[in-house]
């Protein structure tokens, strides 16, 4: 996923991020519920926006990540900045969830991420890796 992200345009990169985050959200929601997960995402986004102001249009609600406002600006963002920002969100989300659940959910979330990465991978490149 990291490799794929390196050369992808911002829109495609963000699509990949949304798929990845969505997979984690769905898995975590089963166990933690909307309210808890929304609160955690709210914290993660708040912290991410402090460090990467370009991420401030992202919002959390009971369905997960709301990115309508962000998508309007995504095309104009520098890919490196975007890559760093969404990487921060993923890592921070996993970290906070890990802290709060004593890492009980972490393997399952990593597994979800791996599935998304596998789906996103170009067949030829996947074979190489």
């Amino acid at each position, binding site marked *: 996923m990291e490799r794929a992200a390196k050369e992808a345009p911002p829109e495609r990169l963000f699509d990949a991020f949304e798929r990845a985050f969505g997979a984690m959200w769905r898995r975590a929601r089963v166990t933690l519920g909307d*309210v*808890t997960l929304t*609160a*955690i995402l*709210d*914290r993660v986004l*708040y912290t991410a926006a402090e460090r990467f102001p370009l991420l401030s249009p992202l919002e959390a609600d009971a369905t997960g990540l709301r990115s309508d406002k962000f998508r309007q600006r995504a095309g104009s963002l520098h890919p490196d900045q975007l890559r760093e920002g969404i990487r921060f969100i993923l890592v921070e989300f996993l970290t*906070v969830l890990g*802290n*709060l659940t*004593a890492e009980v959910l972490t393997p399952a979330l990593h597994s979800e991420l791996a599935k998304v990465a596998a789906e996103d991978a170009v067949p030829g490149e996947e074979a190489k890796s």
Partner: protein
Amino acid sequence: MNENSGVARVKTGVRNLDALFLGGLPKGTVAVLGGPPGAGKTILAQQICFHNASPETRVLYFNTLSEPTAKTLRYLSQFQFFDQTKIEAGIQFVDLGVILRTEGLEQSSSLIMEHVKKVKPAIVVVDSFKALDDLAESHQELRKFGYELAVNLMAWETTALLLGEYGSRDLETNPLFSVVDGILTLHQREQSGEQQRFIQISKMRGTEHSRDEHSFIITSSGIEVFAPRVTIHREDRAERSTAGTERLKTGSSRLDDLLGEGIPLGSTLLIAGVAGTGKTVLGLEFLYRGAQAGEKGIVFSFEETEERLRATARGLGWDLDREIDRGMVEIVFIPQPDIMVEAHLLMMRERVQALGARRVVVDSVSVFLHKIKDPQVAREKTFQLATIVQNAQAVGFFATDIPYGSSQLSRFGVEETVVDGVILLTSSEEAFERQRYMEIYKLRNTAHSKGRHNLIIGPGGINIFPRYPAESAAEKPPPPMETSRRSLSGVPGLDDLLGGGLLERSVTLVSGSPGIGKTTLGLQFILEGVKHNEPGLFVALEEGPAQILKTAEGLALPLNEAVTKGLAEIVFLSKAHVRASQFLAILTDKIRASGTRRLVLDSASHLVTEGMSTEELRLLLYGLASQFKALGVTSLLTLESEAMYSTDSVTDGGFSPVADNIIQLRYAQVPGAIRPTLAVVKTRGSLHDRGTYYFDIAKGGARIAERIDGAAPMRSKSGRGKRSRKRA
């Protein structure tokens, strides 16, 4: 689940409180701190905040409608935990009052989270959350609000304390209590005649915790929790050591004699007795002797002030002041009205540890626990006291007042079950005097003396007079008497009758009618020893030394010369001043000090005091005989016989089995006069002549004359006198 289960902890900074959660509040806990107004909720929360606050560990303190922040800060500044420098950098106070009044619950929640996001605090306090409760229009709204706030605070990994005037009813009905992770309640009520504050943890997710009530106080230092049930527990190391062999000698020689090989370290002994039996003096002497032996000691006194205890010690001739000055003894006086059992238990533990005390006296445990009505609680507190002693590997003497006329061993009747030993002090009126007694009632893992032992309190302290000699309790019996080692009697002709003299270390009873010559015989026995440089001790119970010397002089016996040379000593023990039960100890000390080899007790009959039975005298004589033998002394005990002529009874009182040898002196009627006679009734391990001989006394002392039946003495094979063989 334990402290190491991986859940990070927030230390409260409140003394002994963390122990109730096995190390502190689980990090991220959302806990309710409930209790009525004035219970100490705000102080507790603030103490926790100030303990943790720093630029890295920030605290958000939300005030609601309950108390203006300005007042909170003003009162807060009086506590020692308050640190002005932590305000803002560490702790931020936020007043939610206006928002609550104008915007309601939802906006308040948003505002709280807005601050949380900005500050990213480790700890959040809402004081009071009950004010938010009251603004909720329904249970549903309150539950939703509480749940969402709890979840949001959880998401930020903050530890939150929600304060409120919650009562026990709220535990069942308030939806908030099912949302939060922990519930701590503070309250106060009357216990043991006093208003006391208590803290209780009803619920705390993520950790084991105590569920009991624990008392606490609020001082200028803040809150101090007392939880001896949790904080005072027996250490494994101490448990093992107590079962081991390390023992302590009290330093009082005769008490140590009674206590066998010593008191195992870590043990506690109850010193039980009614008022005036010597408990305080015993405890004080225990400390004083310990200090002299280089062992530090501490006394917790609840009745006698330090000055009074010092004066008591001075009155007994002890330089306790010096031991206190050089740090060997500490006196901690706690006035009875000021006793707070749980608080003082912890204080005692600290003082014992700080001093490194090897000896701990509590005087008295019955006063210390006097407010406690429940015997089981008294038992628990006594156990905790004993635990302090055990963990310190010290020895404890806990005085306890027994109710008058009771058969109990302690005030509450349960304390003796948790201690390792009981020393019972009693007193009784005898011959118009009150006599004190000591009994080692119980001492675990130790072979100790049994029975009651007389004691007196006087200059030097407690003087115990053991009923039984320590030597008699020795594992090995004294070696048998050797027939080749004999002590000559000093009475011409008598040794032939005895088979060559008295066996060394033997005990001889001389039973005789009044005025027949028992004392003379005893004096000659002593003086014969003097000839062989064997120190002799003449113990007189009837006559003083001057009279004895005069008697000897009248018989031309060189007693005065022997006394002058230091080879003979006359000791007068007045029956009026010395109790029968004290003789054994007094004579033991004397024999040890003088290196006595021969001893005369004249007469043993005078040991009898009013109320003493023949059986008691027999036991006493048995004790004396055993002790003399054990100390290597050849002894001669005279006994007064009421019979002038009769030989039916040897000793009147049936004391024959006590002695190795028995010599009977009786009068015989001759025409116009009576004449003393002597018969050897019994010798152990020797042949002896069973004939009755005249016993003449003249200048130079007594001597054996002819047989009263006119027959020739029965000569032995050696030609010195025929002896009848007798099985030893």
